[in-house]
């Protein structure tokens, strides 16, 4: 199964990246020409690389990790029913079909006065804007982040709720402030979950483009074009399948290296080691 669904597609993509396959679907091998072009001649590749770094970093920092953690902490610090209710609300974007979710954003940010945001501004006598055109990167970061935050929220919530309550209660009895409880007890105890979510979400953001495609389509003028979307556009807009395969090989290698670095930084071996108590 692994060979069929993971290894074989990877080998095919690797081989495809060495061809100039286009709409004719012919396997014409050209060596590493596609890679040479990407590294030395393609200015759009450079732009999309920078966009990707900005997009992944800020979405991860502020939403998938940051907002996810904030939501988990706040909703576990309130009454259980209320916490559940707020978590459910934050799950709604993830439960909404992608196209509907994107259309909602397009409606909210419509540049005319029919757009929700602009109609509110107009109501208060404020100037209206073409939001997508002016802030395309911010728009895709927020739109993706509102969905991505729920993943971290669920994992972090589960991990916080699984912590022994007596530890937290004891700290409070000893006079620890809520901030101390969070920084000295909760965060150190959910370190593994924090690292897992940031690593997993980073890799997932690297390859995600669905909402960007639907909301800005990478525009205007490549301002929100990320590497994965550029790959998609090259394959299914220009029908340059060989070149697109080379772009995706580079993305896969980058993801692989990032994952290795992550595992090394977080010292995965130590984390996966049997708890010392079990060895006694």
């Amino acid at each position, binding site marked *: 199964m692994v060979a069929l669904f993971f290894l074989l597609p990877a080998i095919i993509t690797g081989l495809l990246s060495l061809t100039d396959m286009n*709409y*004719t*679907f012919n396997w014409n091998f050209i060596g590493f020409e596609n890679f040479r*072009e990407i590294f030395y*001649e*393609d*200015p*759009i590749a450079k732009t999309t690389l920078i966009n990707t770094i900005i997009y992944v970093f800020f979405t991860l920092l502020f939403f998938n990790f940051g907002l996810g953690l904030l939501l988990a902490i706040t909703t576990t610090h309130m009454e259980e029913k209320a916490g559940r209710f707020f978590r459910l609300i934050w799950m709604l974007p993830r439960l909404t079909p992608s196209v509907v979710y994107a259309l909602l954003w*397009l409606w909210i940010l*419509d*540049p*005319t006065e*029919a757009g929700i945001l602009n109609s509110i501004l107009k109501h208060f006598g404020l100037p209206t804007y*073409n939001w*997508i*055109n*002016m802030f395309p990167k911010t728009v895709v970061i927020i739109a993706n982040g509102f969905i991505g935050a729920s993943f971290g929220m669920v994992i972090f919530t589960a991990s916080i709720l699984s912590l022994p309550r007596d530890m937290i209660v004891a700290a409070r009895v000893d006079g620890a402030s809520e901030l101390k409880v969070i920084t000295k007890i909760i965060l150190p105890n959910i370190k593994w979950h924090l690292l897992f979510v940031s690593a997993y979400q980073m890799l997932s953001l690297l390859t995600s483009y669905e909402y960007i495609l639907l909301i*800005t389509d990478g*525009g*205007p*003028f*490549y*301002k929100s074009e990320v590497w994965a979307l550029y790959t998609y556009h090259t394959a*299914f*807009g*220009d*029908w340059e399948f060989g070149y697109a395969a080379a772009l995706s090989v580079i993305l896969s290698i980058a993801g692989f290296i990032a994952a290795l670095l992550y595992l090394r930084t977080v010292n995965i071996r130590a984390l996966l080691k049997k708890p010392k108590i079990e060895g006694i």
Partner: protein
Amino acid sequence: MRKGVIGLALIACLTLAGITIAGTAFAKEVKLTIWAIGPDNPSFWRAKAFNVAIERLNKLLKATGSDTKVVGNVSFETVSWGDYRTRALLAFKSGKGPDIYTTGHEDIGMLADAGYIIPLDKYVEKYKWCFDSFFPSLWNSVRLKGKIYGIPQDTEARMIYIRKDILKKMGWSEEKIRKFIEDGWKGEVTLEDILKIGAEAKKKGLVKWGFYHRPTPGVDYFQIYLAYGGRMWNPDTGKLVLNEKAALKTLRFFYDAVNTYKITPSGMTSVSWKSIHKAVVNGDVLFWLGGSWNWAEWQRDYNASEDYLFENIAFIPVPPGRKGDKPVTISHPVVYMVSSTCKNPDLAVALIGMALAPDLNAKHAVTSGHLAISYEQLSLPEYKKAKFLSMVTPLLKFTHFAPNHPKFNTYNKEGWYKAIQMVEVNGAKPEEALSFLKSILKRKLKGALTIEP
């Protein structure tokens, strides 16, 4: 009378075809899959005509004594051209493509190059009774290396729509407006005039914007390039052409519209179609670089009566860059093609011929705002009654076609569209955008491009 002659001619041809079909396939039912696209809703006759044509063809087949019956699987898409093309390419490659495929004529280069469609010369000759009344110039749009790869289904013209009521509010007399429109048709109005009048209307607070153009990639932009003396390809070499001088003027036009005169929003390429049409119909914009099909769209989807449109909106061909030069329009015939996997191309072309019968095509033209493809169609009462279409037809004397080049989509979408976005969105100078355009086209098109100074 003419219908009867065509019918008899088809019976004769189909008798022979029917023998071939029966003899080779031993099948009584011949299944033909037909894909058609709008994408605008009013163009549904591109598909519906086949349902009627299949009925008619089956009656004829029965009359010839053939036991062959055509069964059609007709679909009509309203997805974007890009999605439709991608789906078709993958279907063709996997051998599951349609027998008859409807698309813009400019895809001929790519589809023929990949071997997905077949030349139709011998079939067109065989069923010439169906096609001999077609306007000869339309066949130029479907030829590649001397061969016919598609059959024109319709054509249209592009123009600059003008809100007459806004001009009146600007203090223009009826006479001045009439003269302006007349001059527009003579090439006495220039692109610079459009920018200046648009700016005046905006300055007076009569419109939100002076000039709108389409938001998505399309052939419309090339009208400005042609108006400044550019050409898209060289028919002698078969290569795509970038004329630097004309390209620079074109990019400057879009730059000025957004940055100098401020009559086009910098985010024009992200404004939705719906907002654009609403703005034109409501008189929020003075000039709209649109197409003849918009007329039907506005009536059908934007609640504008034809009387209201005639009262408030007029049109002229796209003005030249220099006074006195010929105005411009680009026609983009949608064509029917027969795929290389079609087992009965003979019957497929006969069916196309019947779907393009003047009465059916006139219905398409009238409901969708497209133009007649044959002289015979012009004489039909239904078409004659359509005042707007008869007003638009003279635009065809200024017409140009996009080249049937395999790389035209790249030339258009990755090059020109992005360069225009660059001056509009980024506020890049026209010179910078030209430099980008040159470098991207050189890299993407390699030997398929000629750059003219």
